[in-house]
């Protein structure tokens, strides 16, 4: 069984950290994964995405085919919708509610959320606000990782261990902040949806 996740956002929003957490957790759970990412020119304030595929068996393609993503996780709502053709029938759209409008022609926000809400399986989470409340809006990515943790085949323990590994070199405060963000995101979803 392959679980396909597309992480969508803007360069600098912490997508690669979510991806790295999933990679380490998958390895520690003895699973296979492939995870493509964006480097170079597009990283600078532009649209970025990462395809993460986790499986108990061998995975061929580094890219998720269209119509096969179980989850599209948006650090930003318009970026979430950019990958809509990848969504599987019945797949989940999960996104931070906060828009990032660094372009002049950013579309009508209501139109964006109406579209997202037209899918039965969607979650719009105030991840940035939640993260800010518990310490720093930068941890919004870990709130969202917590939010999808119940939908994916890697165990929470492995995800939390991965967060520790990734932030350990920075500071104990950051480890705690990100673990806290993860737990808060997880709890938010558990209180909101029945899975």
């Amino acid at each position, binding site marked *: 069984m392959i679980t396909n996740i597309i992480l969508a956002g803007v360069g600098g929003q912490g997508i690669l950290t979510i991806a790295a957490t999933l990679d380490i957790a998958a390895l520690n759970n003895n699973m*296979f994964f492939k995870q493509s990412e964006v480097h170079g020119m*597009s990283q600078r304030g532009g649209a970025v995405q990462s395809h993460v595929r986790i499986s108990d068996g061998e995975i061929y393609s580094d890219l998720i085919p269209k119509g096969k993503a179980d989850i599209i996780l948006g650090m930003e709502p318009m970026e979430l919708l950019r990958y809509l053709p990848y969504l599987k029938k019945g797949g989940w759209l999960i996104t931070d509610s906060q828009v990032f409008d660094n372009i002049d022609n950013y579309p009508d926000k209501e139109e964006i959320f109406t579209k997202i809400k037209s899918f039965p399986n969607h979650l719009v989470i105030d991840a940035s606000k939640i993260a800010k409340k518990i310490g720093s809006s930068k941890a919004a990515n870990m709130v969202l990782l917590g939010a999808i943790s119940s939908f994916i085949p890697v165990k929470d323990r492995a995800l939390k261990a991965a967060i520790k590994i990734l932030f350990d070199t920075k500071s104990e405060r950051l480890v705690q902040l990100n673990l806290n963000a993860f737990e808060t995101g997880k709890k938010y979803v558990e209180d909101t949806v029945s899975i």
Partner: protein
Amino acid sequence: MRNIVLGDEAVAQGALDAGISGVYAYPGTPSTEITEYIIKKKAKESLNIHATWSANEKTALEAALGMSYAGKRAMAVMKHVGLNVAMDAFMNMAISGINGGLVVVVADDPSMHSSQNEQDSRYLANFAKIPIIEPSNQQEAYDGIRHAFKMSEKLRLPVLVRLVTRLSHSRSLVTFNKPLKQKRVKFPNDIKRFQLVPARAKPQYDLLVQKQAEIRECAEDSPFNKLIIGADKSIGIIASGIAYNYLMENFQDGCPYSVLKISQYLLPRKQIKYIFDESERILVLEDGYPFIEEQLADFFKENTKVIGRLSGHLNRTGELTPNMVAKALDIKLESINELPNFIEGRPPQLCDGCGHYDTFNALDEIRKEIGDKQIFGDIGCYALGALSPHHTISTLIDMGASITMAKGAADAGVHPSIAMIGDSTFTHSGMTGLLDCVNEKTSITVIINDNSTVGMTGGQESSALAKIKGICLGMGVDPEHLKVITPLPKFHEENVAVIKKELAYKGVSVVIPQRACVRLPSDRKKEIKKILEAQN
């Protein structure tokens, strides 16, 4: 043990474990992380190898050849367009052959994610008549490098390893092998083959032509090429590199057709003959140009047996995807949601506080007077000056072309003619163009944006650090017309005045907006400041 590595890092670790004594490279997406990994590893583990950025791809490849000549294993790394810069050395090292193993790793960028074209390096390796390894996944990237060095030493030829963006920049799990030891200095027994005067080059070229049969045999026996026989003979599929993954993605429970996976070239004729004869049609899948398809397809289109990008069964341009493969094989896709029509593009932008903004702003004021078609741009972060909201630069062709194109326009009578280039692009390929201008007293203004780093690829060390002024003066730029300015909003008026004054000058003038890249760590910025102060 399984290790989490990027495709690029698998190549890097593969090279270290294949016993290289040096890596030579110029940064370029998607190849940069290979050399970065080796540089970091060297620092961390005090490895006894050469790992420093070169001024450009040509100097990199020639240095790698020198190390190989001395008997040690060397790797040169670049992006696809970088190979154009190194092409002179590349073609001729195939004629001379090598001594210690020499592998040229080139990362292609189908779909031009971060490049000005999507050229396919397999054509250039074929042009040079050398073997190619094209790994299909991260483990093969690791194993393929060791195999490439083995081939290189067996055939006494350089070997090209071709990567594509989706392999370079995708992580997976890789098992490492026991490392090989580095080689010692040992000159070639026969140095005459490295002396390419016509009398020696001719027999060497004949030898290279003769070696082609052996190169093909190596590919026919290669563990990286795999023929899998299927029961359904209505179509046979030839898939190279990562195209194999996109094929198999569509057949999770096994492919009913015969499949020839190709990861080593020359094309394995034996296996191709087999699949060609037994199948009614042949579908060729490649992430890049139709390199294999062109070799197999029929010129007069009388025989339509071979299909792929040329026949229109796959998109003619752009990178291959699993969905394109499904379409070519008539595999029904589940309903796919359409992209909402209100989604807008979000192009990359300069970072907040970037000095290039200030230089663009100064030039924008000048453009109001001189018109907006005579600022020639170059490769680097300031290439974003071609996009909204700036629209500052008119052209963007290749590394260094800003200065030489501005020169040609000046020669045609355009004044002022302005070139905009970055510090490391200047030392990569801009210096010689400036020399032409100085020698001819061309009326040109060259703006060298000095952020003291290679910015776009992530802040690598610039070969130009603290050297630009000296280089310009050494080439004969008049010190009166060599101005260093600080691109900050508070100096805007002053900077506009300096540039305007130099534009009026009939001769070569150089303006250097100098401010370290905002993305560099603060200790590096301090270090750069100290170095620049000592120079000034």
